[in-house]
């Protein structure tokens, strides 16, 4: 029994580690070059506080509570550079390589040739449910990494976009814009 519990803890721990993107050590150099680095951390303790304090009576708070209650962490890191070319494709590849690991599947790839903007949205699956999400969005002067750990209801994904420091992807707008061009 003890062995089974230990194995369960280890397996859960390993999955938790896999769903959290590791910011490569080389990114500390990017931070030095960046004009601005925004780091948003909503860890399990903070999300726990949020779901504890948010009211069930207020409609907005209730909706927020529903979104937040299944989550184990929201991490956003955004680098803004003064000029183009401060980060390379190789830097972004260090992140994308992690998204090719076990459990991850990338279902949205947005590429805008005109604006040179790329966004990749990937889900981490565990036991048939979505247990994590990652977004890597790159623009010539900006690089944003979003990582959400925890159960994410597909209905709530739209609610998260533009909230908690998570950027709006505007996939439909971009597609239409590219189609026009």
């Amino acid at each position, binding site marked *: 029994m003890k062995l089974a519990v230990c194995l369960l803890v280890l397996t859960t721990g390993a999955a938790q580690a896999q769903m959290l993107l590791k910011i490569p050590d080389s990114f500390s150099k990017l931070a030095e070059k960046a004009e*601005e680095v925004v780091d948003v951390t909503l860890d399990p303790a903070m999300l726990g506080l949020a779901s504890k*304090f*948010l009211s069930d009576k207020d409609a907005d708070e209730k909706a927020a509570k529903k979104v937040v209650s299944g989550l184990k962490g929201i991490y956003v890191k955004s680098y803004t550079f003064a000029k183009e070319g401060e980060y390379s494709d190789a830097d972004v590849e260090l992140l994308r390589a992690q998204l090719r690991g076990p459990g991850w599947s990338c279902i949205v790839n947005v590429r805008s040739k005109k604006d040179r903007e790329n966004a990749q949205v990937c889900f981490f699956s565990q036991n048939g449910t979505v247990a994590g999400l990652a977004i890597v969005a790159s623009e010539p002067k900006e690089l944003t990494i979003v990582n959400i750990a925890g159960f994410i209801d597909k209905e709530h994904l739209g609610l998260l976009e533009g909230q908690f*420091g998570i950027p709006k992807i505007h996939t439909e707008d971009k597609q239409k814009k590219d189609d026009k061009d």
Partner: protein
Amino acid sequence: MRIRFLPAILLLLGVICRPASGAERDFQAVVGAIEGHLGVHRTHIPILGFAKLFVKASTPSGLHGLELATFEDLRYSPDRIGDFRNIVSAALGDSWHTMVQVQAAGRREYTGIFIKGQGGQFRMLIATIEAQEATVVEVQLSPSQWFDWLSNPARMGQRVGGKNRHEGCCEEE
């Protein structure tokens, strides 16, 4: 002195001289740590205590428990921004969570937003440092206000950190 003013004076003294609460102790700990780190004393803000009474009474935007300290005439090296961040975090202790950090090394600016749940309310402490000045603000927020702020923490950090001076920030959706 007319005796009819006595209750009002006692009430005023009670507010001003009340023992420091846990949140105030945290705030004072941060201020003390920053003073030690920067080697300067906080700038005296005339009639701040009086202003705080009005904040307490009127609660603009529902804010409570405003605490404010500023430090001026600094000569702060951008290399030491990491030290500032660590000193604030250490002074606050484990019960506070680091929610947002905005670091602009080029502009020698750092903003840290820390949060703590306390009795069904949230206390939020914002510490900023620029090349020549630093500010520490602490306020108490209701859960709904906190959520409003939480909905866009980067904008919150950028507003406090001065990003709103830059194009593209803080446009309303």
